[in-house]
């Protein structure tokens, strides 16, 4: 009785795109993709075991196909034909037919969709999936991600140092970053000017200025919002304590209760910025850059967040080798630059910056695609949480922003 109609189920994607979202067109893209959340309502079995992921017989050599699930609009698209040039080139070069599906709209939602199969030790029919750090960590920990054969991915040596040695995958044996982005401030320049007399937004003090009461939103992605709040309070989001988190929750609760924060959203904030209902937000860099010159984007001076979406091969994938070949291809600097030029997110591939000079020189100095060390030093990667911590913090966050 709680989900009466397919549209309502479908609407999940639209409303719960709380996690890293790509570009605003998703709002429409999400609608179609989510009937599957119904699957989330199935009974959760309990058969999964932590540890090494099961592998299936690799059919790659006989069956030249590859099933790839990625976020919408997260790869170069030829606007005229709707084709994906880099992917077409790969198919031609490798002789592999790629079924590229844009069906990851939200980490939690995607996981809910395939969870039962993973737990019951079934193939989820995908050879590459792209998941954000913390969700990738959860997959590795539960044995849902296979160890990569790095011999097939020599280009993985192009991974920039900043992305090497993450806590959930210290040697990058299971995952390779696809793109990264920042949790940052975004604002409507002229509206901000008339509200608080400044065209730029650099600190949370400004965001929480009473003149902006009811005109700001923060992200429903706990890590981005809480990371920025904790950094503002002087805690270290890469390594914080329960106390640090509670203090930030206090601040959040206070701002929610006072009506300062209008809404806590996924990427709905983009539309709200455009209509003028909202003047300033905590949002995602790539999304906000798309809005154009009337809008500003900046990392908070006390620090923003940095997240990464990672490619990984799910347990029992049938075309693991083909997946690894595709990963290798996308770690070629020229290919990486092609993708970055289109999606405007940070590329983790060494040499892409040099390659970009050929593709679009204007983007070479773009801090949102090729951040300097200084920029990166002002962005935190949220601490890796244990499942218990994750649940505890998510609950505290949700009860602060709702009910």
């Amino acid at each position, binding site marked *: 009785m*709680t989900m009466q109609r397919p549209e309502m189920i479908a609407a999940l994607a639209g409303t719960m795109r709380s996690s890293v979202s790509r570009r605003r067109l998703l709002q429409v893209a999400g609608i179609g993709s989510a009937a599957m959340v119904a699957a989330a309502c199935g009974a959760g079995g309990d058969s999964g075991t932590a540890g090494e992921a099961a592998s299936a017989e690799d059919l790659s050599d006989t069956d030249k196909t590859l099933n790839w699930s990625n976020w919408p609009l997260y790869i170069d698209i030829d606007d005229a034909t709707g084709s994906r040039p880099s992917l077409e080139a790969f198919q031609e070069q490798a002789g592999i037919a790629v079924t590229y599906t844009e069906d990851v709209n939200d980490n939690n939602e995607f996981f809910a969709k395939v969870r039962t199969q993973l737990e019951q030790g079934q193939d989820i029919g995908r050879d590459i999936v792209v998941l954000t750090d913390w969700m990738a960590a959860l997959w590795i920990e539960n044995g849902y991600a296979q160890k990569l054969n790095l011999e097939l991915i020599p280009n993985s040596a192009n991974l920039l140092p900043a992305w090497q040695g993450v806590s959930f995958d210290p040697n990058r044996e299971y995952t390779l970053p696809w793109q990264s982005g920042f949790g940052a401030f975004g604002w409507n320049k002229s509206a901000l000017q008339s509200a608080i007399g400044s065209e730029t937004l650099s600190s949370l003090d400004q965001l929480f200025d009473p003149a902006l009461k009811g005109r700001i939103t923060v992200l429903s992605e706990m890590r981005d919002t809480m990371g920025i709040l904790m950094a503002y309070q002087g805690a270290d989001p890469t390594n914080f304590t329960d106390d640090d988190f509670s203090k930030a929750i206090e601040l959040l609760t206070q701002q*929610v209760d006072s009506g300062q924060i209008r809404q806590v959203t996924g990427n709905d904030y983009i539309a709200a910025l455009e209509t003028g209902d909202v003047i300033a937000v905590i949002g995602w860099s790539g999304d906000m850059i798309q809005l154009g010159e009337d809008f500003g984007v900046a990392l908070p001076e006390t620090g923003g967040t940095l997240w990464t979406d990672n490619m990984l091969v799910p347990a029992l994938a049938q075309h693991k080798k083909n997946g690894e070949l595709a990963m290798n291809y996308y770690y070629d600097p020229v290919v990486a630059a092609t993708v970055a030029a289109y999606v405007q997110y940070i590329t983790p591939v060494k040499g892409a910056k040099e390659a970009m000079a050929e593709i679009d020189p204007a983007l070479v100095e773009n801090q949102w695609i090729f951040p300097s060390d200084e920029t990166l030093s002002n962005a935190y990667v949220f601490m890796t949480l244990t499942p218990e911590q994750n649940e505890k913090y998510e609950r505290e966050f949700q009860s602060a922003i709702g*009910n």
Partner: protein
Amino acid sequence: MVAVVPTSGVSGAPAPVAQRSSRTGYLLLFPGIAWLAVFFAIPFVTLFLTSLQQPVPGKSGRYMFGLQFSNYSDALAEYWPLFLRSFLYAGIATLLALAIAYPLAYFIAFRAGRWRSLMLVLVIAPSFASFLLRTYAWKTILSDEGFITSTLNALHLLPEGRILNTGIAVVAGLTYNFLPFMILPLYAALEKIDPRLIEAAGDLYASPITAFRKVTWPLSLPGVVAGTLLTFIPAMGDYINAALLGSTGNRMIGNAIQINFIQFRDYPTASALSFVLMAGILVLVFTYIRRAGTEDLV
């Protein structure tokens, strides 16, 4: 649900024929029953079992078979305000929908003449667009810079200075989205009323108001009951309107269920909440039908 009553035991018919026709009746029932079993009964039982699951010790986010009835009390303790709010929002939306739909249905049934079909199509037409898109459209309509909000603000009628992302917007969205479910049953009931009864009331010196009170309204009650149920029940469980049009303080119980399912992956709590919601609605509906005394009306 669909209840096909087998037309057995037709008096006077020879026994063998009656028997065969009753068997045919049951045979005809089969698809319906199979449908119910597969898509309602089995999920229902699964959901119930899920609602009693207990966590696997030492494995966060994993649940196993159990008889953890405390899932229910915990869920209620945490989310009872959301049940109340859902009841309130859905109740107001239902009353508003009734107030809007009744005159409209009355007009279509008695006054629309040759425009009747067209008007009915117009009532249903918005449903051709996705529920979600229609709700998004309300974000634009109620936008702070929009016509409605600025007009009301100029008259100082809005305490919060805005409509969007308040409870008002959520109730408005619920009312709008479920309005056709109110209009259609009302129309069906009103349309069946014999206009000569109303004329007769007039002939007997009843004022138009008395005629409405004594004739039209009682005869339209089945439509009122059906319409209010069809509006209230889905509105009570809705979460889209609250998510898109509401703010942090406007979450409904549907939002809590969704967050527990997707965000926390806490299936037992989400299932328990779903069950409480279902049980609550059932009780409300039974009480309502009893009180309305409409069992014989429907």
